[in-house]
C-alpha cells in the first residue's frame, strides 16, 4: 500500500558549482525547484556573479550562456577567494575557497600487472601507475587523480596525509567510479612525493592500450568532503548504500547550495609500448 506523500514547497535557492584553478574560474548557476514540480531548471542566466580576492579587489564573472559563467583569472596559492551570486528574487549566495599549492608531475611509470578475459570479446588489463611529483609539499592535504584518457578506469584512494581513507574515489570524472571485480584494492603509497595506484582498462580482444593521460590535482579537505558525498549520493540513489540519515551533497555555499572548489592541476601523457 504505497501512497504519495504531499510535501510543502520550498522557496527556491540559488545553486552554484564553481571551480577555481591557476588560470580560470568556471561557474554554473541554477536554482532549486520544489519536489512537486515536474520540470527541473537548467542553468539560469543574468545572475550577477563576482569573485573577490584577498586584496579586496572584486571582479565580475561574465555570463556565457545557459547558466555558465567564465573568466580567465590568476589566483594566488594559499589565498582565500570569495565568490558571490545575486539575482532578484533570491538570497545572495556566498562561498569561499582557497587555491592550494601547485602540483608538478615529473614522470609517470606504468607497469602491466595482469589481464583477465571478461568474455569472448573483451579483456581487462591491470596496470600499476607510479606518478613522481617534483617535490613534497606539506601544504597539500589531498591529491585527486583522474584518468582523462582512457575515460573509464578503476582507481583507488590516494590520500597523502598519512591517513588512509577507505573507499574514497576521485570523482571529477563521473565515469571513474567502479570497483575491481576481483575485490582487490591497490594500497596507496604514502610517500608524499609519489603517488601510486592501480588501474584497469577494458579493451576489445586484440586491442591494446596505446596511451594514457592522467590528471593530478592538488586539493584540500573540503574538496574531499564534497567528492565523498557525491560518491555516497550516487550509491544511495542506486540503492547500494544503506545509511542512517539521507545522503546530501556537501555544500559550502551560504544561503544556497552547491560547491566552490579551488584546485591546481597538472597532466601527463604517456605512450605505452605493446
Amino acid at each position, binding site marked *: *500500500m*504505497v*501512497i*504519495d*506523500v504531499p*510535501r*510543502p514547497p*520550498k522557496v*527556491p*535557492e540559488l*545553486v552554484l*558549482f*564553481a*571551480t577555481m584553478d591557476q588560470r580560470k574560474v*568556471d*561557474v*554554473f548557476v*541554477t*536554482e*532549486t*525547484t*520544489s*519536489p512537486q514540480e*515536474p520540470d*527541473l*531548471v*537548467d*542553468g539560469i542566466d543574468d545572475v550577477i556573479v563576482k569573485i573577490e580576492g584577498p586584496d579586496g579587489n572584486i571582479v565580475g564573472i561574465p555570463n556565457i550562456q545557459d*547558466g555558465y559563467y567564465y573568466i580567465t583569472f590568476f589566483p594566488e596559492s594559499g589565498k582565500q577567494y570569495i565568490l558571490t551570486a545575486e539575482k532578484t528574487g533570491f538570497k545572495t549566495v556566498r562561498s569561499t575557497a582557497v587555491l592550494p599549492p601547485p602540483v608538478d608531475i615529473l614522470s609517470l611509470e606504468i607497469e602491466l600487472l595482469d589481464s583477465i578475459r571478461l568474455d569472448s570479446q573483451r579483456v581487462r588489463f591491470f596496470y600499476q601507475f607510479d606518478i613522481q611529483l617534483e617535490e613534497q609539499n606539506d601544504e597539500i592535504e589531498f591529491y585527486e587523480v583522474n584518468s582523462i584518457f582512457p575515460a573509464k578506469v578503476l582507481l583507488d584512494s590516494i590520500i597523502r596525509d598519512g591517513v588512509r581513507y*577507505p573507499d574514497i574515489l576521485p570523482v*571529477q*570524472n*563521473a*565515469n571513474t567510479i567502479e570497483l575491481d571485480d*576481483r*575485490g582487490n584494492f591497490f594500497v596507496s603509497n604514502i610517500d608524499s612525493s609519489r603517488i601510486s595506484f592501480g588501474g584497469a582498462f577494458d579493451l576489445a580482444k586484440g586491442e591494446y592500450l596505446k596511451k594514457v593521460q592522467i590528471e593530478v590535482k592538488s586539493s584540500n579537505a573540503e574538496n574531499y568532503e564534497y567528492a*565523498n*558525498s557525491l560518491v*555516497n*549520493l*550516487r550509491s*544511495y*540513489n542506486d540503492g547500494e*548504500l*544503506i*545509511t*542512517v*540519515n*539521507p*545522503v*546530501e*551533497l556537501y555544500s559550502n555555499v551560504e544561503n544556497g*547550495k552547491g560547491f566552490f572548489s579551488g584546485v591546481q592541476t597538472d597532466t601527463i601523457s604517456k605512450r605505452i609500448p605493446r
Partner: protein
Amino acid sequence: MRPTHLFILLWSLFATASFAQDKFTLSGVLTDGENGETLIGATVYVAEIGEGTTTNEYGFYSISLPANQPFQVEFSYIGFQNSTREINLSADQKMDIGLGEGLELQEVVVKANSYQEQLRSTEMSVEQISTKEVKTLPSVLGETDILKVIQLKPGIPSGGEGTTGLYVRGGGQDQNLIVLDEAVVYNPNHLFGFFSTFNTDAVKDLKLYKGGFPPQYGGRLSSVIDVKLKEGNNKRFSGAGGLGIISSRLTLEGPIEKDKSSFIVSGRRTYFDLITRQVNKANEGVEDNQPIPDYYFYDLNTKINFKLGEKDHLYLSGYFGRDQFGFDNENFNFGFNWGNVTSTARWNHQFNPKLFSNTTVTFSDYRYKISNEIVGFSFNLDSKIRDVNLKTDFYQNLNSKNTLRYGASVTYHEFTVGRLKAGSDDGEISFSGGNEYDGMEYGVYISDDWEASSRLKINGGLRLSGFSNDGTFYYGLEPRVAANYKVTNSFSLKGSYARMNQYVHLVSNSGLSLPTDVWYPSTKLVEPQTSDQVAIGGSSLFKLFGTELFLTNEYFYKLLDKQIDFIDGAELFANDELEQEFVFGDGYAYGGEISVEKRTGDLTGWIGYTYSKIRRGNFFGPKGDVMEGRYFAPRYDRRHDISVVGMYKINERFRAGATWVYGSGDLSWLPSGRFTFQDVGGADFQAVVPSYGDRNTFRLPAFHRLDLNLIIKLGLKKKRENPNRRWESDLTLSVINAYDRRNAFFIFLDVEFAEGTDNEGNLIELPTGVTAKQVSLFPILPALTYNFKF
C-alpha cells in the same frame, strides 16, 4: 532534611536488638492459592495502625508490628479474594498465604487499601499490566502481546505501526533495559517488530519504569522493563494454548513434587512457511514464477523451581527464540536468522524474618546472521552480544520505618561487531572483517525506603556503576531519590530524581528496530551516555457519577549527554571503523502524562494522554563539530499521544475489548527541493540532486487506529452441568484497524526516470525527480483464535 529526622534515621539504623523486641516481625510469601505462583506487589496492610507493605519481586513480605497486640492483617492482590488474618505477635512469625482467585477480573471489588498502597508508595513513573488484562484486549493476527499492550499506557509511545521499538520519555530505543527473569533481552522482537519475544502464556508479570528508577537497576537511561516468568503450577498439572491463523502455542505446567517443586514449558511457532512451501511447490516450473521466501519464528520458555526447605528456593529458567527468513533454489541461497537465548539460575534465601536475599547468575546471547550463497561465491555476516552476569540483592526490614535494599552485580560482555567472511569456493577470492570487544560492567547500590512520617515516605539511594574495556575505565555515581507525600486519604503528591549511566549502545541502521542493529561497548572514543531525570506528579482516587476512578498525572524533565548519532552518509553495515561514523551530543526531553483508570464494574479500562517534546544536537565527532549549539527533533519526537482502552463484560459468554490510539506523526527528513547537478569539470550526464533543509522538519500524517475484539466463551453449558470440568475454551475474534486507516510504516524516496541520450547518442535513463512515497502496513485485519486451558 531536618536534624530531628536525620537523628531518627541514624538512631533506627544503629538500634540494638533489645530495642527491636517491642516489635516483632511477620514475614512470608504470598502466592496464588490455585497454582502456587508468587504474587508480586501484593499488599499487606494493617488498617488499625495505617501501616503496610508490599511483596517484593519474589513474593516475599516482611512487616514489623507492635508485640502482644491483636491486629487484623489484610492480604490483597488485584484479581484475587482478599484474605484477613488476626495476628498477635509474641515472637517473629512466618506466615505464607495463598490467595483465592476472584470470580472474574471485573467483578472483584478492589478494596480501598489496594489503591491506598499506590497512594502511599514512593514508586512513581511505573506501569504494570497483568496477563489477564492483556488477554482481553485486541491483538494483531490473534497473538496477544504483553509488550504491545504496555505501550497503550501513557509515556510509552511505540516506534510506529508494526514495531516494538520503545521510545520512553524522549529516550532512544537502546535506552530500555529489558530483562526476562533478570537476564537481559537485547532484541525483544519477532518478525521485524510485529511481535515481541514474550509469550503471554508464560509471563506472570511485567513492570515498566519510566523514571524514579530504583537503585538496583542500572545500565540504561530511559526505562526498565522487568518481565517475570511464571514458576509453574505446583498444585496440579495444567495447560493452556491457542490455535491462530499464523501461529499456535502450548503451555504445560505442573508439580514435580506437590507444593515443593514445579515446572513450566511454553512454546509457540508460526506456520506461515508450511503454507508458502506448498504454494511454491505447486508453482514449480511456472513461467516467471517468483517463489515466496520462507519465514517463521519460534520460541520456548522453560522453568523449574525447587523449595529447598523453609528458607531456600531455587529457580532455573531459560528462553530460546529464533526468527528464520530464507530463500533457497538451485542457484541462489539466502538466509537471515536472529534470536535471543537467556538462562537464569536464581537462589532465594531467607536469613531471618527481616533479611531476605536473592542471588542470580544469568546468561544472555543475542545474535543475527546473514548468509548468501550464489554459484561459486558465499557471503556471511554476523554480529552478536553475549553477557554473563552475577548479582546479589538483599532486602532488610530494618524496622517499621526503614526497609533497606542493597546489592552488587558484575557482568561480562562479549561483542562481535560486523564479522564478515566472503569469498569464492575455489579460495581465489576471500575477504573478512569485523571486530570483537569485551568489557566488564559493575554495579553496587544501597537504598532505604524510609517512612519519615505518617504522610511522608522517602526512598533514597545511591548506585555506583562502572565499565572497563581494553584499558579504559569509566565509572559514575547515580543518586536516586523518590518521595511521596500523602495529602489526604485519596490524594498524594510524588517526586523523583534519578541519574543513570549507560555503557553499551545500540547502533541502528535505521529508525526502525531491525535485527541488524548491533550493540557496541563504551571505548576510549565512545564515552558512556548519561541522563538526569526529574519527575513530579500526583495520584488521586475520586468518584464521578458514582464510579470510582484513579487519576495519575506526572511531569518530567530529562537531560541527556553523550548521545550517539551519525555523520551524514554514515555507513554502519559491515564497517570495520564504525567509530569514525559516530558523533556525540546532548539532548533534552520534557512532557506530561495523565491517565484515568476504572478498575471495577463490567466496564474497565483507562484513558491516557501524553505530551512530550524531545531535542538532540550539539554534536561533535572525530572530524570536528557537526552541529555546534544547534538542536533538532529526532524522528520519534511525537508531540501528542492518546490511548483509550476498554474492556467490557457483556455477559457470561461474551466479553469485548477495544483500543483506540492516536499519535502525532513521526518526523522525517525529506528533501525540500531539488536541482540539476552540473559538475564544471565536464560530467557526461546530469543528475537530480535532492536538497535537504533542517533535519526532521517533515511530520508524517497522524497515526490513529481502532482495534476491536470479541471473546466468546465456549462450553458453558457443559461447565454448568459439571462444575469440576477443567477444560475451558473460547474463540477470540480480533479486528485490527477497524476503520482501515492507512498509517505510515515508513517513507521512501522514489527516483523517477525519463529516457534520454548521452553525448555519444546512447540511450540512457535520466533521473528527473524525487517523490516521497508512504508505505502503510495494516489494512483492516481480522483474525480468529481458538484458546483453551485445562
